[in-house]
């Protein structure tokens, strides 16, 4: 791509919503309300995806909700800068470690919740969230960057899989 290929006026990138917000300033109450709403959206989707009763689904989603709340509180109050999803993940791990006494009580409640179906609402929101700015960047980038992007993703994935495979074989972790 030469300079002439580039459009004379690049879109104002300040509007592009790429930046990681400092999640420590996250307002908790609206987040908890939205978290409740998106969990509610998940109830019928889980009812289709699983054999669980509506009550078990609601209980399972409530437990996941609780994990998210603890994770969000840790994000806000622990002076170690990790994204909220990392904290939530750590909370869920800590609550389900088999050697800890409470895992026997927590795990059966969430085990039945289908993880594939839980990914449906975020991707629907993501489809709605594509902005005019992002469409402008895509059009400006053109087909070359699309091909490069496919190679970037394939390269990252295959590179990681190759190293993981070799290490698993060498360390004998794969039996």
């Amino acid at each position, binding site marked *: 791509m030469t300079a002439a290929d580039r459009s004379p006026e*690049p879109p104002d*990138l300040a509007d592009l919503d790429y930046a990681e917000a400092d999640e420590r300033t996250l307002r908790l109450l609206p987040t908890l309300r939205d978290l409740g709403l998106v969990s509610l959206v998940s109830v019928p989707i889980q009812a289709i995806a699983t054999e669980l009763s509506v009550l078990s689904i609601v209980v399972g989603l409530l437990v996941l909700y609780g994990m998210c709340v603890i994770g969000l509180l840790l994000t806000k109050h622990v002076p170690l800068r990790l994204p909220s999803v990392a904290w939530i993940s750590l909370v*869920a791990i800590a609550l389900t470690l088999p050697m800890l006494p409470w895992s026997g009580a927590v795990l059966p409640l969430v085990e039945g919740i289908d*993880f594939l179906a839980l990914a449906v609402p975020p991707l629907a929101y993501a*489809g*709605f969230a594509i902005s005019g700015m992002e469409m402008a960047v*895509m059009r400006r980038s053109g087909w*070359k960057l699309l091909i490069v992007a496919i190679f970037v993703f394939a390269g990252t994935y295959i590179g*990681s899989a190759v190293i993981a*495979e070799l290490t698993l074989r060498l360390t004998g972790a794969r039996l």
Partner: protein
Amino acid sequence: METARGLLRLWPLHLAVLVIGVVSQVIGVRAIPIGFGTILLLPMLFAFAIALLLNPNVIGAMRRIVPARLAAAASPLIVIAIMPFIARFGADIGPGIELVIRSGPALVLQEIGNLGTILLAFPLAVWVLRMGRESIGAVHSIAREPNIAIVADRYGLRSAEGTGVLGVYVMGTLFGTFIFAIIASVLSTAGLFSIEALAMACGVGSGSMMAACSGALAAGAPEASETITALAGSSNLVTYATGMYVSLFVALPLVEWMYRRSRPDDPGNARISLFGRPRSEEAAS
């Protein structure tokens, strides 16, 4: 964005997501055989595609039905909607902790595998497509938010390098879930790698990429579902902790160096020192 009065004003958005979600889940997992493997299309991909088609920013005609305001309000909801999903993933890592610890070295080392993007994409960008310094931003990483921050800091987003990283970022936002689902399902049915290695590699990208990738693996091998989520989830966690440093200290300097070796005459090379801060102030954008 409008979160204060959002509850009442955003109900059409939540309702639309609910309907799209139910429709997608009823469609279910669809398998497309392609000779050397199978592509698994998941409900989450249908949900993303349907929402894209309803998005007024993507399909202009939708402006009459869906106000652009709703699209803007959807953005902060993605990360919130993915939280229960991440928690569910964590609830598979806990019980699988022995497997995760046993796979510890592989989980850490496969972060270096992220450099595979340079191996595969750099030659394509520089020698086949004859791209300029955009290549540096484009191929150095999988271009998620932390990587953009790094490129913005070193080159500025209005630079050629910024154009490259933003381009791959947007392509990833639009097509990343599809690309990951396709690569993962093809590789798992082709039988070259173990399911454990493929699962770990699923953790390299964003939450939705991990979802699409491990979802495709799990749909193809339901009996290994908990192994897959435990390894993909812990790999994603390792990526949160280390990915930015691999990008900052290894990938970006490496690509910059490779580019200078292959295009010593590019006048843009002089604009920035190999390891240092940007020389011009436009980078502060």
